[in-house]
């Protein structure tokens, strides 16, 4: 059995080494936190004080500034997970499964937040907390998929083995998500032909678009920051587990 002892230290390989990854990305965390905080401050200011209330929906329209970015993230995070899953399966990149593991609970949280704000918004506008509308239904199913993936991660003792299996499941899920979306849309349009909620939406004045845009970036950067921190935590957790195992063996012998 031979060992390749000539490591190629390009940036890709550096990122592949968990210790190096932590070292390289640690300086990024505080700037990211600051940027996220700044974006949130600006976004919330615009959202609360510098945008008009909707003439129909009143102040409840401001829920949109949380709802729309989280709904976007609910899909974006799944995309991140699917790309990481490819990284695990195809390139066998060790950081890919760390990223996959870190993203799953974040995705579940953002999806839950999107559903929660959606139903808060639905109460005054539709008159009910829950409407079996195509988007809300497929978001709910997406939440179930996220929670299933989190449960799958937790069920394994060996995280390296878990990574590959979760990666396969994530990719099969990624193939399925468009099918689910399509089927749910087909189903909901047949049930309620005259929807209160039109897909193209009303024309949005700039005063609404500005805070929406800022909040959109704020949430995206929030995700990136949390993802990075969660990845660092995961790398450290694995290191602790390895040390503990070594210690246990040392005591035993």
């Amino acid at each position, binding site marked *: 059995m031979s060992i390749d002892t000539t490591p190629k230290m390009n940036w890709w390989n550096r990122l592949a080494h968990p210790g190096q990854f932590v070292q390289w990305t640690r300086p990024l965390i505080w700037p990211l936190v600051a940027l996220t905080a700044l974006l949130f401050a600006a976004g919330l200011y615009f959202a609360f004080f510098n945008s008009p209330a909707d003439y129909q929906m009143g102040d409840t329209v401001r829920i949109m500034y949380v709802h729309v970015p989280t709904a976007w993230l609910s899909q974006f995070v799944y995309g991140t997970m699917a790309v990481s899953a490819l990284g695990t399966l195809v390139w*066998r990149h*060790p950081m890919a499964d760390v990223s996959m593991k870190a993203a799953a609970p974040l995705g579940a949280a953002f999806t839950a937040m999107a559903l929660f704000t959606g139903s808060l918004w639905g109460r005054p506008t539709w008159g009910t907390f829950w409407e079996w509308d195509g988007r809300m239904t497929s978001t709910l*199913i*997406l939440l*179930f*998929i996220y*929670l*299933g*993936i989190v*449960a*799958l991660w937790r*069920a*394994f003792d060996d995280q*390296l*083995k878990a*990574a*590959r*299996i979760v990666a*396969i*499941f994530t*990719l*099969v*899920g990624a*193939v*399925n998500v468009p*099918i*689910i979306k*399509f*089927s*749910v849309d*087909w*189903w909901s349009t*047949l*049930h309620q032909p005259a929807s209160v909620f039109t897909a193209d939406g009303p024309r949005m004045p700039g005063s609404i678009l500005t805070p929406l845009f800022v909040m959109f970036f704020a949430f995206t950067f929030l995700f990136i920051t949390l993802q990075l921190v969660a990845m660092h935590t995961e790398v450290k957790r694995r290191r602790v587990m390895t040390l503990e195992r070594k210690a246990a063996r040392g005591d035993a012998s």
Partner: protein
Amino acid sequence: MTGFLSVIRRDLRLAFAGGGDVLTLLLFFIIVGAIVPFAVGPDQELLSRIAPGVVWIAAFLSMLLGLDRLFRPDLEDGTLALYRLADLPLSAVIAAKVIVQWLTSALPLIVASPFLAVILTMDLDTFWRTVLSLLLGTPALAAFGAFGAAVTVAIRRGGLLAPILIAPLCVPILIFGIGVIAPLGGPGQGTAAMLFLAALSLMALALTPFAAALAIAWGRSRAPP
């Protein structure tokens, strides 16, 4: 091909020799269907309206709950490791198992569905549509189920995890399955649902054995660096 058929023969023999599993599943299907009137009241009109949905839910549940017996006994007695070293590719073994899973857990339900149709006062036309939609949809359920079982076979207590993982992925099957029975947007939509359902089943049958084989092979072996 003889290897493929021999896997089917062995698993069928195992499923019917004891008789236990198939009968239990059938009983579960019928009891789920029969318990609904107690929950919603014995209103015949209401029952006959929701009957197709009840039959589908009962089939959905019984197929998902029987998943653990698909690979776990083979894992425990060492057969699964030998499948990986067989001349027949692992994906073909899994395809054979999907067929057996359909024969032992979907076909008996379809055969028993007239009983539920009678006690839920389904009319004859709806009944035939239900049988058609079950015939078209259950292969996809069996295939997705095999994938779920393969993903969770490496987990010691994976029994309840597989249905949780697979149920969201099976929502389209349920939607189109019901779409075949009760065409909402006119008969044209019923045909569309039927085609979608058949396409889903074909796609699931063609692709999931490979995904399941990957999950089993990688779930047992360690990732090379």
